[in-house]
């Protein structure tokens, strides 16, 4: 562990750190653009210059590594001036069109200019700045060579992280620009990450091009609901528009490092824009009618109670790996209280390795939670329930977040439709309109994973919090809340919780693998459940 001095402060750090990392340990920020902890060091942007005693030149902190006895000055006049000059050079041919730049407000170049720049430019004749045409690197990502500062982060990403090598640069000197190699397009499943990696507004997302201003947004740290890897994300919402505007990776070195896949990045739109259920609906004869929560829940609880009396084994509950641990727990608790044995949920399945170490073959965020909360650990359970339905053994069915048609073959769909139509009660709780919902007697509008609080357990057993980024549409409610409302109709005292955090406390007492867990401990990066 070498000891060194940075700005007069002595520190001891592990070998192999560069001076940007070492300085960060004592809260000293060395501005940088091309350096990124997960990419190779190229020392190209020259923004991180610092003074090192005994070295005549200023040195790039990113490419200078800690050594015993090193004396580093990030705050000497020479170092400060060198970095000021770098900013001035960088801005000479920069369009500085921050007012219409999508990066504005969260732009490292803007921030660096503000904090470390000279505050003025001696470049005379802004009208002479070189202007070059923008072009697309894929059908989603636009490149603006005028804003590009040639840090090559994007190029290194495709070389070193995805190893797909779509990007390169062409030309030298002021003609240099980022290009897609002939015959290729930047379409790998992680491609969208280059937009976040770019330290300026040179790589732009066509989806939000000139549509959003980041400073209006509210950010929520949550977890991606699109596969069992459980990538950490930050969801940006413009409260005035009330919908998710952007999903970005949130650093979690244990889970997704700095990245998310493009499904995780873009698919919220399908969820947000698709046909959503907004109010409780009750079937009256052949028609549907919107109902109050009270009426809809009453309808369900009364019918379940009745059918349960008549034939205890003819009532079944179905959960889903899209539900949070808390919701799954509540569903099981409800089943127990009512005395129902037919409870099942799809438990997902991870097959083979993850693409790019990230993308799982199990498209559900909480398959692990399904098993942990006490559902059958294989998919036999759900198969049995479907069989019972097809055989006409089930009379009342409460389905939460699942489309039963997923579990039958094309040929069996007709039979399932018929069997479901014959049920005395089909209550379906979901946020989207599925085939199962269409056959329901009572529809309870739930919330998408972007609209509720809770936890998911990823395929490596890491319990992570999801948080409500936006409210559910219309009268829809988070599923945990609906479960509470329904539960109270069966046993009042068993369902008194203020929030999912309290449900977790109960889980932590009942389920050994989750012993001692609470939201505070889970924190923003999650914790592993016990072995």
């Amino acid at each position, binding site marked *: 562990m070498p000891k060194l001095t940075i700005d007069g402060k002595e520190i001891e750090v592990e070998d192999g750190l560069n001076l940007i990392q070492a300085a960060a340990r004592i809260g000293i920020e060395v501005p940088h653009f091309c350096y990124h902890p997960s990419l190779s060091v190229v020392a*190209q942007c020259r923004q991180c210059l610092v003074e090192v005693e005994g070295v005549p030149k*200023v040195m790039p902190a990113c*490419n200078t590594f800690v050594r015993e006895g090193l004396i580093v000055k990030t705050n000497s006049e020479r170092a400060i001036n060198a970095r000021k000059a770098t900013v001035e050079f960088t801005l*000479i041919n920069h369009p500085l069109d921050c007012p219409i730049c999508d990066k504005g407000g969260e732009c490292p170049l803007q921030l660096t200019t503000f904090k470390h720049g000279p505050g003025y430019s001696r470049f005379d004749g802004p009208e002479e700045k070189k202007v070059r045409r923008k072009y697309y690197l894929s059908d989603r990502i636009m490149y603006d060579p005028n804003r590009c500062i040639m840090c090559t982060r994007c190029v290194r990403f495709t070389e070193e992280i995805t190893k797909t090598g779509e990007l390169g640069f062409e030309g030298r*000197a002021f003609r240099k620009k980022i290009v897609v190699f002939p015959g290729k397009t930047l379409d790998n499943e992680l491609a969208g990450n280059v937009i976040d990696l770019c330290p300026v507004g040179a790589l732009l997302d066509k989806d939000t091009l000139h549509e959003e201003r980041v400073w209006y947004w509210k950010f929520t740290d949550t977890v991606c609901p699109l596969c069992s890897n459980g990538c950490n994300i930050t969801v940006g919402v413009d409260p005035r528009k009330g919908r998710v505007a952007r999903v970005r990776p949130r650093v979690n070195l244990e889970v997704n490092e700095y990245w998310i896949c493009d499904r995780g990045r873009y698919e919220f739109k399908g969820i947000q824009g698709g046909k959503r259920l907004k109010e409780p609906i009750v079937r009256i004869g052949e028609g549907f009618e919107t109902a109050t929560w009270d009426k809809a829940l009453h309808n369900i609880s009364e019918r379940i109670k009745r059918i349960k009396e008549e034939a205890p084994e003819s009532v079944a509950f179905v959960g889903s790996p899209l539900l949070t641990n808390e919701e799954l727990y509540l569903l099981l608790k409800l089943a127990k209280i009512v005395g129902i044995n037919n409870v099942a949920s799809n438990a997902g399945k991870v097959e083979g390795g993850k693409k790019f170490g990230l993308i799982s073959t199990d498209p559900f965020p909480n398959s692990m939670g399904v098993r942990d909360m006490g559902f059958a650990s294989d998919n036999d359970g759900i198969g049995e329930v479907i069989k019972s339905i097809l055989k006409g053994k089930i009379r009342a069915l409460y389905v939460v977040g699942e489309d039963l048609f997923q579990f039958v073959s094309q040929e069996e769909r007709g039979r399932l439709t018929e069997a479901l139509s014959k049920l005395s009660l089909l209550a379906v709780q979901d946020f989207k309109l599925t085939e199962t919902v269409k056959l329901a007697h009572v529809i309870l509008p739930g919330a998408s994973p972007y609209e509720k609080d809770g936890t998911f357990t990823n395929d490596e057993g890491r319990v992570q919090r999801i948080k409500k980024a936006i409210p559910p549409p219309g009268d829809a409610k988070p599923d945990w809340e609906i479960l509470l409302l329904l539960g109270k109709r069966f046993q009042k005292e068993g369902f008194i919780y203020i929030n999912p955090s309290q449900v977790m406390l109960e889980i932590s007492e009942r389920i050994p693998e989750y012993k001692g867990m609470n939201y505070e401990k889970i924190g923003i990066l999650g914790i592993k459940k016990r072995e």
Partner: protein
Amino acid sequence: MPEMRIIRTYVDRANSESIRSYIASGGYTALPTALKMDPLRIIDEVKKSGLRGRGGAGFPTGIKWSFIQRDSKKPIYLCCNADESEPGSFKDREIIERDPHQMLEGIIIACYAINSHKCYIYIRGEMPKGARVLETSIYEAYEKGFLGENILGSGFNIDVVLFKGAGAYICGEETGLLESIEGKNGEPRPKPPFPAQIGLFGCPTIVNNVETLACVPHIINRGAEWFSSIGTPKNTGTKIYGLSGSINRPGLYELPLGIPLRELIHEYGEGVPKGRHVKAISPGGSSAPVLTAEEIDIPMDFDSLAKAGSMLGTAGVTVIDDSTCMVRVAENLAHFYRDESCGQCVQCREGTWWLEKMLAKIEEGRGRMEYIDTLLDACFQMKGTTICALADGCAMPIESIVKKFRHEFEEHIRLGKCPFGDRHMGTWDESN
């Protein structure tokens, strides 16, 4: 006064480039001697000779060779830097075209010394003739058994590969050169690591200039003591000086290091054309800070020039006379470097571009007084802040011109035009 020819001895002879001519004049006699020596003794001998790199930086060659870990598990490479692209420099080309076997013999000895079995000669794309000659020379050397397997029965193998560049100044910078040989864009690498540790294809590599390598057989043949007796104590041997610009007898002159610049210009070059006066001298290729006419008595060696704030560089001396506008000289320089910058470092990519803009405006009479200090400050910030020395190569001469000829800049700005008349340089394609 005659030159002191060692490397240039036979360049005027017909067919001097052929192996027959080289052998007839005593060539390839150093090789058998060297092969009988302990490689470490060769390195020692080169160290003792005081030979300093002729590629520009003047780094002691023997010391550079000793940086190689000779028992490396990876292959060790030698790269012969034949990219000569520095404006004002044309010394390597003559060696390549007129006496290439000297260089090849030097390559073979150097390979043996550093335990390398493969040498890449990186030749500039715009030297088709040199490339043709080298192709033949390499072929001849293989035929005679100087290259290939078991050289002269020594059991040592060496292959030489000729690699043609595509015409970029930056590929003469040693790590740009390595990138180029690896098939990538010629973009210099951040150092450390230095090529001797991690060089070509990630292996230990030595990069040496053509002229440096051409000195080696002579050192082996005649001894380190003989070599170090030429020149000054710390600047040993002869140097091939290139004279160009406003001079009566332009060309190459091989003379001991340390020869006074005055002698070079006035005796060998026979001075500037009649009626003209020396105004400035670029003593070591375009990257060297210029000297004024008053500094003409300086000895032409690495240390004296460094002490005077300039550098010997490639020893390509360009004489500028009083009919030439110094603003235009600076503008021309900036133009070259802004075109040749590889574009990695912002100080270089944008700095060269900015310098050219400011200089062009001053030259066209649209400059402002504050540009002068801005020029100086920009030059200052371009020095020592980038990955390679190209940015320094642009900033140093321009800074020296602005400092030493500030009055010309002021005059342009005051008059609102160039006192030397309109610029005749063309314009450049800025399209992309």
